[in-house]
């Protein structure tokens, strides 16, 4: 269990740093989502399941979806879409 916790915390730090470092916005949002998921598991380990549910629904769900919609609206992920349509 101790190893699992340390693994989670290390990946949390890696995610947090790489969200800021990575240039591609889409990738950065997906990493942000995984950050929220890791945080959700950590909340469960810290024995606060209330926060875990909220983190999973709000942090990994709604916030990321709002980011995606905004990126699509400002045409930041349009290139991917074009590639899909051509394929």
């Amino acid at each position, binding site marked *: 269990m101790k190893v699992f916790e340390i693994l989670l915390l290390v990946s949390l730090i890696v995610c947090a740093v790489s969200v800021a470092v990575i240039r591609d916005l889409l990738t950065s949002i997906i990493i942000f989502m995984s950050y929220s998921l890791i945080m959700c598991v950590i909340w469960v380990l810290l024995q606060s399941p209330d926060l875990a549910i909220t983190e999973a629904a709000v942090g990994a769900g709604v916030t990321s979806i709002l980011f995606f919609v*905004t990126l699509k609206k400002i045409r930041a992920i349009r290139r991917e879409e074009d590639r899909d349509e051509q394929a």
Partner: protein
Amino acid sequence: MSRRKDNYGNSRYYKFRRWFDGDIDLLEGVTEVTLPGEDKSGTGTGTAAASDRPAQAEVRKAAGTDRTGDISALEARRRASEETYGPEVWPQRETVDYAQWRRHAQELLDARIHPAGADAAHTASEASKGGGGAEGAGGSGASSPEPLVRGMKIFQRFYMVMSVILCALIIGVFLWTTVHLPPFGSADNPANNEVPTRYIESGVAETGAINFVTGMILDYRAFDTFGESCVLFIASCCVLVLLRIDASSGESRARSRGPQEDDRLFEPKNDVILQRAAFILVPLILVFGVYIVLNGHLSPGGGFSGGAVLGSGLILYLNAFGFAKTERFFTEKVYRRVTLCALTFYCLAKSYSFFTGANHLESGIPLGTPGAILSSGLILPLNICVGLVVMCTMYAFYTLFRKGGM
């Protein structure tokens, strides 16, 4: 999300913006303010100034009454006053050449991007305009190109160095603070004082909720939770103000932009995989959300988490099946009514409870047996209220971001 078209044409902000863009001139001979002594460039005598003043007052009065822009009547009145008092001399207003400003800004930008070729370009444009553009920038750097570029370089280097130093400082302060935090989970932490002891020991007896986190949030500190719900509501109102697209103007814009640019026309993508997955998942998610809300006082969860789950389920449903399906049961009217009812009920119930229970009076609400679903007094209805508000807010956020309405 709009019932009628707003007529923004008369609003002061709209007028100001059009004036700022240069479309109209608000000061077109109507509300001109003239300083005494300034307007008498030609005739410059005291009697002329005295005779000129009623004319201007008349013109100003005309401007006040003819807000709608009846220029012809105004013009006739001005001509009449001119006949009686002689020709008016309007002061020359200072005109601003925006094109010149823009050219100058472009030059500054070029000088920043290409510092090597900046000298030649700048001096050439300087010679062509006779130094007219350089006066707008102000400061000592604008008069000659060389100190400007150097100043920008110095500023950039200063900025980089200072940002790195500031980041390192903040990281150091945080790490230093973390080292001095009390150890995690220790029994003699300062957080373990008499307040959590009271909550843990007599929370179940006083609130009737087995999950005493919910009992704490919605009974001891219900006023804070009311503030949180109001914050959510205000946040959705702000998003509404910022992102709302008027129905008629949105449609006309969609028509002008064409179907490729506007994804509102292709809202349901009819993705079979997504639809099948949503067909199975959405009922489960919604039932789970309702369970979290209703069991908030018995098991982990509560209004906020359950509302967020419900909102996510609705968003998934909307993504899979499109706006036409969700607008059958969730429109702006429903949103407004549900949110208002929930917030009002919360406010009234909690103020009743505060006013009767806070002074050690009997609040009259039975607590029931702890562990039953109909127990713990007001906590269950308050959980439902918070859940409804959060669900509506999440869904409203998404629809507003997506299409600027509901």
